């Protein structure tokens, strides 16, 4: 088992699927079905393999595991991959959501289904690559490469304003990432390598750290997204097809959260602690600002998109507390948000497929004809609100607990987000689900089909399961987090003692 390059298999299996898809003739009878089935089976198989990897993962080991290191460009830039407790769960999240996305697209995608599925499978490869990369250049390649399939998914299969939205998405993200690329080049010039494992132990010059940190920050802040560079997200979500939104909210945003933990904290600890107040301030603004905007939305997807901005605010808050509770809270918040917001977008997609509108006012009283839908939707709304007993609570609670120990101002302001979240979420639910069924076009609306039940029930189950028993997640995250924190605190204490010595002289 250990000889198998399991990580590479997981990364490149979807590409194999692409190959298969490209040889299937979509024009033949049953061709479309074959395409969908193939994509579904490939992604499901990949999920199964990733679970096998999870089983073989050694939780107590804080080093990178399943490491593969091959010569690639030169001695400093290599194909170096491996995972630890911070990345493995995000990989599982990706492989888990992918079959769901494909299944969710079965009926809603009407044209060019082959290209659509190919775009998704390529995207999967790139996303998994991001979480595995142990080389900055490799990371950058995967990180930026992901833009292209997403750009196409929104731009080709999106809604009415898809071109505007997809360009906005592309340019925003690209603009941020240019700085990261420059920083990666500078790091290479400075150290002669882009190997992350090496750099994690390497003490970068502190004045350079600040610049590098800002460069990486530019990229991650756009991607996660933080205020004030968040405006691409609502537009992108609104126009994206359902599965596109699911991946965008479920995985793409997490790449930035992961980036903050792995790179900002790992490579530039001194700068991270220096800039933490900036992150806190922007996160607090994001939480309150986005929640207030969510209150007045008329479009379901926009509302959920703004709530995503607020939820990701908790992630950035948690990461920059440099505490165990904060960072693990941020991780759990990311996973929970990956489940819950993905599910919420799916819920929107389900009714969108039926009557083709996202406008909240066009709905009302769905519970009368769709009780099962109402039931699962309620679970996800509660997860989004962060009700104890759902996964949403664990992350938010841990983050806020950690923030309180750092700064009570921030804790108070961030906690107001919890009140606002209840307001806009329940309002959405009430407008869509409760009330009498009076609208003309809703009279014959059907409850969840079998396919939709298969999509939503696992998500609902996980939302509640991790709410009551998040320990499986914690067991995986904790050793890596402790390791990370001890590395950081060494560096930070070191600087503090150096500045002390300098000031004493």
């Amino acid at each position: 088992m250990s000889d198998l390059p399991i990580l590479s298999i997981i990364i490149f299996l979807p590409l194999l699927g692409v190959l298969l898809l490209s040889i299937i003739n979509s024009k033949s009878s049953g061709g479309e079905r074959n395409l969908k089935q193939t994509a579904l089976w490939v992604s499901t198989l990949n999920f199964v393999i990733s679970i096998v990897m999870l089983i073989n993962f050694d939780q107590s080991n804080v080093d990178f595991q399943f490491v593969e290191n091959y010569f690639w460009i030169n001695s400093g830039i290599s194909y170096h991959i491996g995972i630890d407790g911070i990345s493995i769960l995000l990989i599982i999240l990706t492989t888990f959501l992918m079959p769901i996305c494909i299944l969710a697209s079965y009926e809603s995608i009407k044209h060019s289904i082959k290209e659509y599925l190919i775009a998704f499978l390529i995207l999967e490869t790139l996303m998994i690559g991001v979480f595995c990369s142990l080389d900055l250049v490799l990371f950058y390649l995967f990180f930026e490469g992901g833009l292209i399939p997403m750009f196409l998914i929104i731009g080709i299969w999106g809604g009415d304003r898809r071109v505007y939205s997809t360009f906005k998405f592309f340019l925003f993200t690209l603009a941020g990432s240019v700085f990261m690329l420059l920083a990666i080049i500078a790091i290479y010039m400075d150290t002669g390598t882009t190997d992350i494992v090496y750099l994690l132990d390497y003490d970068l010059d502190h004045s350079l750290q600040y610049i590098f940190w800002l460069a990486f920050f530019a990229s991650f802040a756009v991607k996660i997204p933080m205020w004030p560079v968040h405006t691409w997200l609502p537009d992108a979500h609104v126009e994206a097809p359902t599965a596109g939104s699911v991946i965008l909210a479920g995985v793409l945003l997490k790449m930035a959260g992961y980036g903050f933990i792995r790179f900002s904290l790992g490579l530039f600890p001194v700068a991270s602690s220096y800039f933490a107040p900036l992150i806190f301030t922007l996160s607090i603004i994001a939480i309150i600002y986005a929640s207030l905007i969510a209150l007045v939305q008329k479009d379901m997807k926009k509302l959920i998109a703004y709530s995503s901005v607020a939820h990701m605010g908790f992630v950035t808050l948690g990461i920059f507390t440099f505490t165990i509770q904060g960072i693990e809270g941020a991780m759990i918040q990311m996973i929970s948000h990956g489940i819950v917001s993905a599910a919420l977008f799916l819920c929107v997609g389900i009714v969108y497929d039926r009557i083709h509108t996202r406008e909240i006012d066009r709905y009302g009283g769905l519970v009368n004809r769709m009780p099962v839908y109402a039931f699962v939707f309620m679970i996800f709304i509660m997860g989004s609100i962060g009700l104890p007993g759902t996964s949403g609570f664990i992350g938010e609670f841990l983050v806020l607990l950690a923030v309180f120990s750092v700064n009570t101002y921030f804790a108070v302001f961030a906690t107001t987000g919890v009140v606002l979240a209840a307001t806009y979420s329940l309002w959405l639910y009430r407008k869509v689900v409760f009330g009498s069924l009076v609208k003309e076009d809703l009279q014959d609306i059907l409850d969840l089909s079998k396919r939709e039940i298969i999509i939503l029930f696992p998500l609902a189950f996980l939302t509640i399961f991790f709410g009551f028993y998040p320990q499986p997640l914690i067991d995986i995250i904790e050793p890596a987090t402790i390791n990370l924190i001890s590395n950081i605190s060494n560096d930070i204490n070191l600087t503090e003692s150096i500045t002390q010595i300098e000031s004493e002289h």
Partner: protein
Amino acid sequence: MYHAIVFLPLLGFFIAGLLSFVKNNPASDKVAQILTATLVSVAALYSIYAFTINIVDAKVVHIKLFDWIAVGSLVVSWAIYVDPVTRIMLVVITSVSALVHIYSIGYMSHDSSKPRFMAYLSLFTFTMLALVTADNFLQLFFGWEGVGLASYLLIGFWYKKPTANAASIKAFVVNRIGDFGLALGIFAIFYLFGSLDYQVVFSKAEALAAGTSNISDTINFFGYQFGSINLICFLLFIGAMGKSAQIFLHTWLPDAMEGPTPVSALIHAATMVTAGVFLVVRCSPMYDLAPDVLSFITLIGASTAIFAASVGLVQNDIKRVIAYSTCSQLGYMFFAVGVGAYGAAMFHLFTHAFFKALLFLGAGSVIHAVNDEQDIRKMGGLSTYIPLTHILMIIGTISLMGFPFTAGYYSKDAIIESAYLASSGFSSYAFIVGLLGVVMTSFYSWRLMFLTFNGKSRIDEDNLSKVHESPAIMLVPLIVLAIGALFSGYLFKNYFIGSSSELFWGHSIALHHADHHDIPFLIYYAPMLLGFIGFFLAWYMYLKNKQLPHDLAKLNGPLYNFLLNKWYFDEIYNFIFVKPARATGLFLWKQIDGYIIDGFGPDGISKLVLNLSLRAKKIQSGYIYHYAFAILIGVSIFITYFIYKGI
């Protein structure tokens, strides 16, 4: 046994919840109803057994189930922690819940989604039990928000009613504001004490107060220095204010009456709303170390008692009168806590559960009888039609007003006497307000009774002929509650506040001994006298001289409207919170996001680029003489430059 008490209702929830997806099947409806009622009843029997054991042996039972969250030094488990305080709550919750389950079989007999209703009731019961059996603040918080969820679902049970939907959201959100305080309190507890377990926290708090610990006794919160324990207790109390509908955070409770009446009886009278009192009593070892906060609690509790009673005087909806009465009685419990009479507060919680659930279910029986009418101005003279309900409600009313030897008499007297004897902050205010509240309580209760049951009926002939007594399945729970409302005070006063109290409570609450023999004769009988005055006033105004209330209302127009509109709390909140929040949201969205960020960011830049390239396009015109001209200009500039430089 304790496992069964907690988890049987959960089992009921699962089964009834599944059955709720079966549509229009009388058999599955029956199964759901009988099954949930049976399971909760079994839990109730167990609880009563546990309670009687407590009288003999008040030992603590502590069962750890499994770890919930273990991150770094934070370790929190799911647990069942049972001490005397828990046992009281268990018996109140499960017995009222069982009776309400049974009553609901009759009350909801015409409803189309019975299993869903039973499922929600059982879910509520489970979360409430999780709340009171917690051994740490986080499980408490789970139960706390869990009952909030159940309450939200049950208030909005009739989801076709817009008012019910609005009320359910309001209940959830206002409670969340309270929970905001509670959550911050929990963060502060962990920050200071490094644990969320009750026992660890209380012992560390005591060490801190005694000066034998290295924990900081002040904490910087929001830029101010606070006493550590003061701050924690204050923040926790904000949570209690939300859940127990104390003044400023009370606005959700009257609106919550949109839910079916059994819900009002169970959640908004007997159990959930008392969770705030439970929280403070549970943390009494810590609150005892925070006298400033106790004074604040006294102030809030007493103010709520008088505020809610004053509003109750003029309301016309039968359920709202009782809701304000609940709010007011919770105020009594809180000022009891505030003056350090934790035992008396729990005692009133205990007796109140019986008589208030009785009143609510009685009101439900009335509403059931008069075809869902709730306005008491449109009732009257019902005593001949539904005599049994009338008698049962009289029992509830006399217990509420504190008629001698009924349950309310013992518990309310104990509270007022404690306030009289106490010397802590605002205790005299509480004492005076407490007495004033007795007159009002008695007045509004009897006003309700007289308008509903006595005099000439104001129901038209058609409807009057349809008025009918409720079926046995609804009346039997009422009778059981009536027995409790009559005797639970006399039977248990010795344990809660009397000579056996030390044995009964064990170490579960902070006990203070006040000498009740020092009370002057007049003070001792004052509550009783004032209760009769209230009764007499109501009798005079609503049976004898019926014109008087109208004249009074006209004479004191502004005051009457002020009370009728509940001190305008809703209007004020709407003006200072709800509207500005929406306006701000709209402003941020359209102006900041749309106009500034996008305007100067992506949209602005793309416009700029487009603009520049349009201009650049003009230069490339394709005419040779344009280019020749440009070259000529360029060359002359260069030449001029070099000549000037002097090469």
